[in-house]
């Protein structure tokens, strides 16, 4: 399994997509800090700091895409053929990719958090707000960022393994995460589904001190509930993909 994971990392490193998505992650992280600190009604007190750091998780969409590409690129360029010839077990292939993309998610989260800290800490100091890294809420928010981004790497991988088709998987994934989830919140009745979407579960993990009114009256799950729901979103597609889709004929 260690060899397989190392092989997956080498696959990622020997193409360019990881670099561009990392660059996008850095840019999004930096922009989010500017957007939260520049306005007069932005982050003003230490109480706002945990939620500010929770925004480090926003590049989760990019890590999701990276995970999707981790499987679908193999089908697009048919490198899946040498891959399965070398490792006939689809479980081993999907398992190695899950580990790899969870680790990649942690690395991307590290970059996002580092950039946000480097920008926000001196900026807030200039505003007279001290960032206390010993604060429980800050620590919890940062831990949640790593958990959420790592799990979204697996969510993407699972969706890729399930759908196999690169364009379909990327488009379906992005439309769901960026459009459908947000539309759900606005529809009366249906909006109660939101806590069980990947985004809703992630928010439950990240935003520990918001009231129900912040989500159009939808009550998020408890943080642990969010963890469980996001774990399901991560593992169910991957398991179904390994058991079914990945086993379909490769021609």
């Amino acid at each position, binding site marked *: 399994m260690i060899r397989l994971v*190392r*092989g997956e990392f080498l696959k990622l490193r*020997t*193409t360019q997509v990881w670099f561009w998505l990392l660059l996008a992650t850095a840019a999004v992280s930096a922009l989010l800090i500017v957007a939260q600190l520049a306005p007069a009604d932005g982050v003003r007190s230490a109480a706002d700091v945990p939620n500010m750091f929770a925004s480090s998780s926003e590049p989760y969409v990019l890590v999701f895409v990276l995970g999707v590409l981790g499987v679908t690129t193999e089908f697009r*360029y048919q*490198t899946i*053929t040498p891959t399965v010839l*070398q490792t006939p077990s689809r479980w081993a292939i999907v398992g190695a990719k899950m580990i790899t993309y969870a680790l990649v998610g942690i690395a991307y989260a590290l970059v996002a958090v580092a950039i946000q800290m480097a920008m926000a800490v001196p900026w807030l100091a200039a505003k007279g707000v001290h960032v206390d890294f010993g604060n429980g809420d800050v620590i919890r928010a940062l831990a949640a960022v790593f958990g959420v981004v790592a799990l979204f790497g697996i969510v993407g991988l699972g969706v890729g393994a399930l759908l196999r088709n690169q364009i379909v998987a990327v488009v379906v994934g992005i439309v769901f995460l960026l459009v459908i989830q947000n539309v759900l919140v606005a529809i009366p009745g249906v909006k109660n589904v939101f806590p069980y979407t990947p985004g809703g579960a992630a928010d439950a993990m990240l935003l520990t001190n918001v009231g129900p009114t912040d989500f159009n009256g939808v009550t998020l799950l408890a943080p642990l509930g969010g963890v469980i729901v996001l774990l399901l979103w991560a593992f169910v597609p991957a398991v179904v993909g390994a058991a079914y889709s990945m086993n379909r*004929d490769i021609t």
Partner: protein
Amino acid sequence: MRAVDQLSFSVEPGTVTGFLGPNGAGKTTTLRILLGLVHPTGGWATIGGRPYRQLEAPARAVGASLESSSFHPGRTARNHLRIMCTVAGLPDQRADAVLELVGLRDDARRKVRGYSLGMRQRLGLAQALLGDPAVLILDEPANGLDPDGIRWLRGFLRMLADQGRTVLISSHQLAEIEAVANHVVILNRGRLVRSGSLAELTAGTDRVLVRSPAAGALGEALARAGAQVVGAGGGTLQVRGMTTDQVGHLAFQAGIELHELAGRRSDLEELFFALTAAGPPPATPPPGYQAPEVAR
């Protein structure tokens, strides 16, 4: 839709077996079933008695290069092989060694995007050889090679066979198979048409062509002497069961004038055409079908 159908054959260790059939005969599908990439609805395929997917270290037992060159265009040849080395637990030097072997050393660090079809074929071969397997399965390895490349491939395959490897090579190019294979399996429309050694398959098919103004009399004389004679038109006869010497001698004795006398060795190509030509008649359009007008 029928994809392959009731094919059955085995490949002996230490031989080069040519897997022949016209395009669409089911060659690639058969090889993909053998490699566990496609599930047959019935039947089985094993390598050394075990299905591919149950082999211990498949890449070390079996090397395969399939028709579709399957490489990421943005990755270099060397990196493609390094990934496989990493997974197989081989040192990176093994990648360099096989690239050298197939003549890609100078292009090893170029992205596959810029490779010609022939170079991709060589990279496919390098990939197949990476684990130093005893069994090689190559689907149309001569596709896209220039004449130099084809000559190189012949020598290369012969070298692999001389090393005692079992090679199964598919092709629709008969000359390629004839040049390297000692066994031939011929497939047509999913069915095994013939299999055996090259010598067995072409034995007994030699014939003599003879042209004479008195073809009728000559034909009778030959038939009386025990040959099978078929008229080929234009005063030409096709004779089986006799050598050119015997035909010439008989004509001389009978006082029959000859204008042409030639021996024809039947080669694999003719055998192949003879075996695969007889298929169902071409599909006729259903009643009431009208060919669509072509817009101008």
